[in-house]
């Protein structure tokens, strides 16, 4: 079951209009109709949804929204619901800190089961906070097809049992509009393209503290996993801030800013750029040297119905499902290409690693980054606001 509120419905419509699927007049009409429908049918729908959920177990899933959610809904959740009679209620978060704030405020994990969790850092945080579950890997036989290289960092944190299964990976590189920036210029400047003064007011950035610090390290010529001069990092972040029109905070916002040419260059998530390219926008993507790679997992929170959650994870890791989701969300699957043949569409995705070893991608080292997160997050929030 897709939990969809009026805001989400609006975002979907907005994305479709951005893609050219609907014209402005139709958009406004649909927006009005959506508002009225929400008002009139909301109560009825809630009642019907409650009845439907009573038929099987309900799993609450929270993810990143946009094309990622659509790919999961279409290729994983709908077939899973049809096959099992269970229900997956999926919703969107702006980041896992939002979920952690809600859980902490409520004092329990009620209403939260599975998260499309970002990176090993967050895996460690959830586990350290006591919200990690213990997956029975015997119930997830498809885990055997997942790359060892992508499982290893998670197993290093919880050697006895996993709380999540790695599901996909990607990079945060640089997207640029080819009408205004040439490939040669982008490749020559690398991460410093984001500091090009001539593009002032047409530069964007991801407002995430760790990302800003990573790119500040690249721009100040440091190894992001071994930053020695944090002042230089924040100086570069300030230099970037003074050129920025908008820091984006979601994939949908990133796509909207690029598609509407509000900005010409920004850091970007590889899959979102691939989605824009598929829609015909003149947006190119490059990973600068030491660009940030990340892996995402499906994290099961403590207190969730484990058998059903494991069944869903196994279903999602089924090669056919995993490949269909990967093609939809534009992020390579965590399945080992040496064990599961990948399609040409996946092989063409940014960040795809045909070796299955991930040796060429640079991930954030949680041992280095996690202890510093409190400080660099607070520092970045100040820099972002002119500090």
């Amino acid at each position: 079951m897709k939990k969809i509120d009026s805001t989400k419905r609006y975002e979907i419509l907005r994305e479709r209009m951005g893609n050219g699927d609907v014209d402005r007049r139709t958009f406004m009409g649909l927006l009005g109709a959506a508002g009225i429908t929400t008002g009139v049918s909301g109560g009825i729908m809630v009642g019907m949804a409650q009845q439907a959920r009573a038929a099987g177990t309900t799993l609450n899933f929270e993810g990143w929204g946009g094309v990622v959610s659509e790919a999961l809904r279409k290729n994983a959740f709908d077939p899973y619901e049809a096959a099992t009679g269970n229900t997956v209620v999926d919703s969107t978060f702006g980041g896992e800190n939002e979920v952690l704030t809600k859980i902490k405020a409520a004092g329990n994990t009620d209403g939260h089961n599975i998260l499309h969790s970002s990176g090993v850092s967050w895996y460690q945080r959830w586990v350290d906070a006591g919200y990690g579950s213990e997956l029975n890997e015997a119930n997830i036989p498809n885990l055997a097809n997942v790359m060892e290289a992508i499982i290893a960092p998670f197993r290093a944190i919880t050697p006895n049992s996993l709380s999540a299964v790695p599901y996909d990976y990607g990079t945060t590189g640089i997207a640029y509009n080819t009408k205004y920036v040439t490939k040669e210029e982008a490749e020559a400047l690398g991460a410093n393209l984001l500091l090009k003064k001539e593009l002032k007011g047409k530069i964007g950035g991801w407002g995430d503290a760790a990302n800003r610090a990573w790119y500040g390290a690249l721009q100040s010529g440091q190894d992001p996993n071994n930053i020695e001069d944090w002042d230089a990092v924040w100086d570069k972040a300030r230099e970037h801030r003074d050129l920025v029109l908008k820091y984006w905070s979601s994939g949908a916002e990133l796509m909207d800013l690029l598609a509407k040419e509000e900005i010409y260059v920004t850091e970007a998530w590889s899959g979102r750029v691939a989605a824009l390219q598929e829609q015909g926008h003149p947006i190119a993507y490059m990973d600068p040297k030491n660009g940030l790679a990340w892996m995402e997992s499906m994290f099961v929170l403590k207190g969730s119905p484990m058998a059903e959650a494991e069944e869903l994870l196994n279903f999602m890791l089924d090669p056919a499902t995993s490949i269909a989701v990967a093609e939809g969300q534009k992020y390579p699957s965590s399945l080992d290409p040496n064990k599961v043949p990948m399609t040409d569409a996946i092989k063409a995705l940014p960040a795809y690693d045909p070796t299955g070893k991930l040796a060429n991608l640079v991930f954030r080292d949680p041992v280095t980054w996690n202890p510093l997160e409190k400080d660099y997050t607070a520092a970045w929030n100040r820099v972002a606001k002119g500090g």
Partner: protein
Amino acid sequence: MERRPWILLAPALVTIVMLVVVPMSFILVYSFYENIDLAVDRVAFQFSNWQALFLDNYYRIAIWKTLRLSVIVTVLAAVLGYIPAYFIAMTKFRQRWLLLLLLILPFWISFIIRTLSWIHILGNQGALNGLLQWLGVIDAPLQMMFTEATVIVGFLHVFLPYMILNVYVSLEGIDRNLEPAARTLGATPWQAFLEVTLPLSLPGLAAGCLLVFVLTGGSYVTPLILGGPSDYLFGNLIHDAVVSELNWPMGATLSFTLLVLLGAVVVAYSRLMGLNQLSKAFR
């Protein structure tokens, strides 16, 4: 002591205590806790959060920006809101209820959607840029989004109905014969408005101003959606502390501070204007 007034007041007092005083007390207590790491707090009685608040210029700048923007939005809302309120109150249009319905119609749509809608109006490929380009006024889109101006427009869009309704209620209560009486005594229409209608509608205007000021001062979503990096209010620092830094003790300190600041404005305003004057707006 007479018990009857207290019995009559009891439901309201209990509600206020349970829904305002108790939660705010929790927040005040939390402000003395210590944040050890992200989302990890230690029960303590220490003043580091309050110390940071008073000694750090970062917070003072945010308070200044908040007060400044709240004043700008309030003044603009007062000017822009008075005109439609006056029109609705004075019109001879029989279906006046329809105008009032139009006024409250936007409340049916989510506040966030209403805010996001400005991207389609002021954006690079928005309606306004499209119109200007179609008319040949400009060749390339004007950069209008993600500025302080768009934040102000977003606030006005959302809060203007509060101002209009307050002023309307005040105007509606004015005796319709007063302006004609002033005219018969030689006043011009403008003089009649300035010296009769405007002073009598001030309680409604004052109530609307107070409401818009407080609502703006406590906002954070509008700057987040429509503003650029430097467009933020004190509420955005609370959002940062609670959601981004997972530092609830600091978030509690900032929340309590905002409550005290806005509460002080309400108290000062009521002393200045007289709360009994404001209540006249609703008679």
